[in-house]
């Protein structure tokens, strides 16, 4: 068992007995962390006196997870979540960096709000990066001061919660952004086609009498944006794709060489619209839970590389709002504390080992197809999203590192300034686990089985669709900037 670490990140840490998994491969090694950085990686490390030892026996030691899609709700929605509570949830889920979505109140559409959120993030349990809105107030009318926000380290812009409906405005946004080294991200939803639907349009919405939004509402905007990328050459990232048609569109766009990336959520790769038969708004989310055919397509997209990352769309809502009837409740699900286990259970555990998840209505049982390797899984959760958000660069390492951007990123060249990490961040996310790198690490026990207890989550909200479900795989320790923020599944502050 590990000893409790102090809050002092300068205390040495030894992570002992685990299997390291990063972009370079897998190997058995211990890790010595000193002064926020990985100091040594060797087959067996004797703990220096005073060092904290984290037991990683039977566990995977991977670069910390990076979430491209977190709603921290602050400012304006503190009843549901704060930067602090959200970062604690992130740490418990194995994340060492999250990208805060800008649909706050006020929206993150000005330098002042960017600075506020970054300041709140300085004491958080994970790196807090900030996404900016594309349009002022997310109203789809005027562009935000993108260059000014980019100078503060904002790398990703989105009106998430809504898509940019106006095609002409979206074209101008892409053209304007293309000189700034930033990426625009879209919540693909044609609001006229979606027509206010509360769930996926199909057999279940028809039976249940709940207004549906068709898959086409997502696919039509995605198709438009792919054409705009073709026209402007500007890179784009697509948020929470959920339909078989959308996965196929992004697959073809990549085959055509377009500079695009895409994410899917844990819930869209595990749950289908049959869950809504309970009329429980915990299953209300936007984009909605789709059919089991779409779930299979999402999984296939992850396996064949059409999709780049799994992002949570962690969307806390106060419990009383999720007690409203389905039509009236807000959309959104918690994700940070369960994402890795859900994805591992759905993608890496074969059907025979799947246990009783398949018995739950709405949970799509693991297929008989390919089973994902742990390295691929952590790629989806760590180094690939780190690269998309520009969080892979190590702000405090040598200048040489700044020029060594990894290939494959959709982003243009990094801005200079403070290293693009918003001043408060540490950078160096996504590994690899090598001496000299920032110590952002996750220790994951793939054999652990646990039942999700929503009352024990660190989030201020309780709206997890996985409450009561048995999952396989659990985050044991999380090390952020050299500090053991989670030890044996407990947040240390």
């Amino acid at each position, binding site marked *: 068992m590990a000893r409790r670490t102090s809050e002092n990140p300068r205390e040495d840490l030894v992570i002992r007995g685990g299997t390291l998994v990063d972009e370079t491969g897998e190997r058995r090694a211990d890790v010595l962390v000193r002064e926020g950085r990985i100091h040594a990686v060797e087959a067996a490390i004797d703990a220096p006196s005073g060092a904290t030892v984290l037991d990683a026996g039977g566990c995977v030691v991977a670069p910390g997870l990076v979430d491209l899609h977190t709603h921290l709700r602050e400012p304006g929605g503190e009843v549901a979540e704060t930067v602090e509570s959200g970062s604690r949830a992130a740490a418990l889920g194995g994340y060492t960096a999250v990208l805060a979505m800008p649909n706050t109140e006020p929206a993150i559409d000005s330098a002042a709000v960017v600075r506020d959120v970054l300041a709140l993030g300085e004491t958080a349990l994970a790196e807090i990066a900030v996404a900016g809105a594309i349009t002022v107030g997310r109203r789809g009318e005027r562009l935000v001061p993108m260059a000014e926000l980019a100078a503060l380290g904002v790398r990703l812009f989105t009106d998430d919660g809504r898509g940019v409906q106006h095609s002409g405005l979206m074209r101008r946004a892409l053209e304007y952004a293309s000189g700034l080294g930033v990426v625009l991200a879209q919540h693909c939803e044609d609001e006229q086609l979606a*027509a206010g639907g509360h769930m996926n*349009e*199909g*057999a*279940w*919405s*028809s*039976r*249940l*009498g*709940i*207004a*549906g939004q*068709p898959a086409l509402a997502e696919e039509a905007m995605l198709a438009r944006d792919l054409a705009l990328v073709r026209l402007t050459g500007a890179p784009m990232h697509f948020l929470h794709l959920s339909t078989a048609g959308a996965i196929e569109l992004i697959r073809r766009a990549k085959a055509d060489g377009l500079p695009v990336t895409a994410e899917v959520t844990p819930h869209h790769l595990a749950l*289908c*619209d*049959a869950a809504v*038969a*309970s*009329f*429980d708004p915990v299953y209300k989310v936007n984009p909605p839970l789709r*059919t*089991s*055919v779409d*779930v299979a397509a999402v999984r296939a997209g992850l396996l064949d590389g059409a999709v780049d990352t799994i992002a949570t769309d962690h969307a806390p809502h106060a419990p*009383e709002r999720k*007690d*409203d*009837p*389905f*039509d*009236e409740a807000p959309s959104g699900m918690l994700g940070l504390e369960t994402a890795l286990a859900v994805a591992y259970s759905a993608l890496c555990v074969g059907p025979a080992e799947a246990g009783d998840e*398949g*018995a*739950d*209505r*709405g*949970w*799509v*049982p693991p297929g008989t197809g390919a089973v994902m390797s742990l390295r691929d899984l952590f790629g989806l959760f760590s180094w690939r999203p780190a690269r998309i958000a520009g969080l892979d660069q190590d702000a405090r390492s040598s200048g040489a590192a700044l020029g060594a951007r990894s290939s494959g990123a959709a982003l243009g060249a990094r801005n200079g300034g403070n290293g693009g990490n918003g001043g408060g961040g540490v950078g160096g996310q996504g590994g690899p686990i090598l001496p000299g790198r920032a110590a952002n690490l996750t220790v994951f026990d793939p054999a652990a089985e646990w039942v999700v207890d929503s009352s024990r989550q660190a989030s201020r909200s309780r709206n997890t669709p996985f409450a009561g479900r048995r999952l396989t795989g659990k985050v044991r320790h999380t090390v952020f900037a050299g500090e053991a923020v989670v030890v044996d599944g407990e947040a240390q502050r």
Partner: protein
Amino acid sequence: MISPGVTTRTETTPIDAAQAIDAGQAIDAAQAIDAAEAMGASGAAGSAREPAATGAPATTREPVATGEATPATEDEFLEVRRGPTVRHLLSIADLDREGILEIMRLSDAFAEVAQRPIPKVPALRGRTVATVFMEPSTRTRLSFETAAKRLSADVMTFTAATSAAVKGESLRDTVETIDAMGIDAMVIRHQASGAPLRVTDWIGASVINAGDGTHEHPTQALLDCYTIREALTERRGGEVPADLTGLRIAIVGDIKHSRVARSNVLAFSALGAEVMLVAPPTLMPASLEGWPVTATGDLDGTLGELDVVYLLRIQSERLGEVLLPSLDEYHWRYGLTKARAAALKPEAIVMHPGPMIRGVEIAPEVADLPATLVTRQVRNGVLVRMAVLFHLLGSGVV
């Protein structure tokens, strides 16, 4: 879990056998009412919250295990929410063929009660029924309250217009407050689909769905089945049909937004009828996968084969949603005009859940024909709701 009567709707029950059961059950029901009268007088009718000992259909929120997530058949739709706990009526899927027929037989017994000089029995004396109508509907509320009063239950009325809901109170707080006053059943009407099912999570009383959004309106479907059965009985010189096997029923109009249609499709097909949905594509549900129906946009082509034409109300809001060009065009294409009524079989009947808009879904002259059973539907509504309340709250000895 699946009702054979529902899933194998081509199966027919021999009429003689069914009649025998029917007669026997009717006698049992009458005896039960008498017994309940006696018990009601002593104030010891048993606990309303005990599950029925007779295995009557009931509802539970527990999801049912299915390997396949997307429904492929009607079986899976009907699998939702079945189990042995507090009794509710949220969906016709909570009843199977036998459950529906049981309500029919109980309604027969209450029809007899209605003929008495004092059409009231003490069956639910001491029980309290709350009607909670978050969406205005005077006729359904009055029908339930009349039914409860004829069973001697106490009635509490709660409507959104006069309630704390207008002050911003949540549905959960509202129903928990009413439940805390001590009620045995809550009859709930809500504008959101599924709201009554959610309420079963929060209160201990039986919940009866009096119409939820565009989901279901089960008591409407039961009274419609009863009305059709009654019309058939008259036509056959008093011989009560076992069920609705052999009938062709067309439901015409805004299927997409109709809770009445959803309940009636389940109820009619559970009783063996052949159900046809007639509407322009814009007023059809996005998917009919798993629905035991056929669908067409051509009313005129089907008129001659129908035994029942069930018309739905067309709401003018649908024009704003560009689902229809105009109400005149709808009337021209789907309205039950004199000419269309003349094309029906002589014995065909016309039904409508009300409120009926003359000149849109039905021509005024047709609305007043003897074949149009709208008034009888309303009258039977009270009987059937008495049967439902008795079924859920009575002693369970039926």
